[in-house]
């Protein structure tokens, strides 16, 4: 479903991603792990068509990625970039107007699940509730590819738990693939099908997580410490 062929991405002279080959199939939740600056976010942005490879090709469902990929991909950015004067309901409606694949009914369902008040102004939302809203906006899109850049970062344990439960509950694993970058491995490891470790722009490991446990008696954190 997602394929990288010898992909390199340079920023000026620095190589953010180097010669990456990758093949990912649908129906899975995949974790992208690695230290800061290792190339995790760059990988997501390349799939989202927000930046372009310096070398190599990326395809989603056989189609080469360019800016038009936005209709196939929902991308949750690490940043908060919403209109503070909107309230929650208006933000949801704005997203619905921007993306034809946006399912308003599902958005309402996720919003209720996340305990968000429709009438709260965005500028008054806590960081945790902004994190929850981002999940609503991302998971309400019925697209084959969902990309989430650090969805748990900086949030308290209660919020992280509600986000993890939200993922389990609202991702459609029959049709979708989900890529998550994260440092919070402990919280998320029980919902990952696969894990990819990135270091200095190169993929140094890619595993089915249950296989890792059954064949090597290792969890993701132990595996990371042996290869990283």
């Amino acid at each position: 479903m997602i394929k990288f062929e010898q992909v390199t991405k340079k920023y000026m002279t620095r190589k953010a991603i180097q010669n990456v080959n990758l093949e990912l199939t649908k129906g899975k939740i995949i974790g992208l792990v690695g230290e800061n600056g290792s190339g995790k976010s760059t990988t997501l942005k390349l799939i989202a068509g927000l930046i372009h490879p310096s070398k190599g090709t990326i395809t989603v469902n056989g189609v080469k990625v360019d800016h038009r990929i936005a209709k196939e991909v929902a991308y949750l950015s690490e940043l908060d970039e919403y209109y503070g004067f909107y309230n929650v309901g208006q933000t949801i409606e704005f997203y619905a107007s921007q993306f034809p694949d946006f399912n308003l009914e599902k958005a309402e369902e996720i919003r209720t699940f996340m305990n968000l008040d429709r009438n709260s102004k965005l500028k008054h939302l806590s960081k945790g509730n902004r994190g929850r809203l981002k999940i609503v906006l991302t998971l309400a899109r019925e697209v084959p590819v969902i990309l989430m850049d650090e969805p748990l970062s900086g949030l308290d344990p209660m919020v992280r738990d509600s986000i993890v439960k939200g993922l389990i509950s609202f991702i459609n694993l029959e049709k979708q693939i989900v890529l998550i970058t994260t440092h919070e491995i402990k919280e998320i490891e029980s919902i990952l099908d696969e894990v990819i470790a990135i270091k200095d722009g190169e993929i140094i490991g890619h595993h089915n997580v249950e296989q890792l446990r059954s064949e090597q008696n290792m969890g993701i954190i132990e595996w990371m410490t042996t290869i990283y």
Partner: protein
Amino acid sequence: MTDEHFHSSQPIYSQLADRINRQILRGELKSGDKLPSVREMGMRVNVNPNTVQRTYRELEGMKIVETKRGQGTFVTENQEILREMREQLKQKEISHFVKGMHEMGYSDKEIEAGLQSFLQDGKEITNQ
């Protein structure tokens, strides 16, 4: 069942299967009871639905549960199978215990005597 964490270094599908088996043994899940849907179970224990699916398949293979089309997954009503599972888990637990005792150098006699006096005193293990 929500507050116990899974060991991150062992397959979660089999840990979840063990948990469900224990619930059946303790009678928390009874013969003929419906298991939560895959997604519902995933949410309760914070586990990927694919993994829960695998657990259910595994239990189905052991004939402990059966999936009825369009209705869900149910604990078997075949008492013979549940008795067998009960017996198997007992043997497994005992062999694990005995192996550990042998590894520490206890003889069969010591194990037997120790176990007997332990049970007579009515001491139950309390986890600290």
